[in-house]
């Protein structure tokens, strides 16, 4: 057997570990029933936020994209509308996090980042739903429901991430 040509470094291991946690959280979330279809807490975002603050943005992009692909393959929605919704939401979150990650540390904590990420998720998903999946203005009546849920879950996720960062996990 030939030895692996691709050199695996410390950062690859880190991405793998973080992505594994994110995938596990996503799967737990998938098997929990949701009171309103489409409203999900998005607990995997905790890992992405944690990665951005503790490590760097590139690692977070890897973790987020790997999570979307692997979860969709496990759950069986790969290349279906659900997968594209998930991917767009994640990419929008990442874009907005990239813009806002330089917010002043004195006034904005990770809770702000979490809220921004949650709202960016909703914005991205609504754009793709309106443009591609359900091209009808009727879906705009759903915006308030998703706004409220993203506000609540963004806040909760932010607080969880903050206490997670306090634990000072170094790996």
């Amino acid at each position, binding site marked *: 057997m030939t030895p692996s040509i691709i050199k695996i470094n410390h950062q690859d291991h880190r991405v793998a570990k973080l992505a594994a946690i994110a995938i596990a959280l996503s799967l737990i979330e998938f098997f929990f029933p949701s009171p309103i279809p489409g409203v999900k807490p998005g607990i995997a975002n905790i890992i992405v936020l944690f990665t951005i603050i503790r490590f760097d943005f590139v690692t977070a992009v890897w973790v987020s994209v790997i999570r979307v692909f692997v979860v969709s393959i496990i759950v069986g929605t790969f290349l279906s509308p659900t997968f594209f919704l998930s991917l767009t939401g994640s990419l929008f979150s990442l874009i907005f996090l990239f813009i806002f990650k330089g917010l002043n540390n004195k006034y904005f904590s990770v809770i702000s980042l979490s*809220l921004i990420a949650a709202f960016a998720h909703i914005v991205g998903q609504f754009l793709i739903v309106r443009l591609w999946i359900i091209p009808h203005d009727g879906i705009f009546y759903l915006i308030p429901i998703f706004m409220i849920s993203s506000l609540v879950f963004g806040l909760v996720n932010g607080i969880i991430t903050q206490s997670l960062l306090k634990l000072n996990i170094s790996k």
Partner: protein
Amino acid sequence: MKKLKKINSQLTKKILIGDLFLIFFFIGLTVFLTLMLWNFPQGEYLKIQMGNKNIGTFSLNQNITKVIDGPIGKTEIIIDSGKVRVSKSPCTKKYCIHQGWINQLHQTIVCVPNKMSISIIGNQSEHDSLNY
């Protein structure tokens, strides 16, 4: 190490001023969008039809009781400042009465046995069909 120090200094307080500002900003945005998007149009007139004959159009901003003669008897309709219901009907199933109050644009109550239908209309003419 420098980065870790920065994170630690950041975690002295739980929720910072900027966070509060952002939370209130998003709450405001949510309330604004809710008010803007969930603003269902209210109708202004009630149109009463008997079979395919138009009985008449009445303003919703009044408190009156109307009695209409149909093929099997009298139907009583109550208009109560913005909302409408059928209170008495000679039909057997009484679906029209069970529907209760209606107050939004294009809502309709139909009593098939008595061939009576009432619907709320606005100022603009409504579509009679839609194509996608």
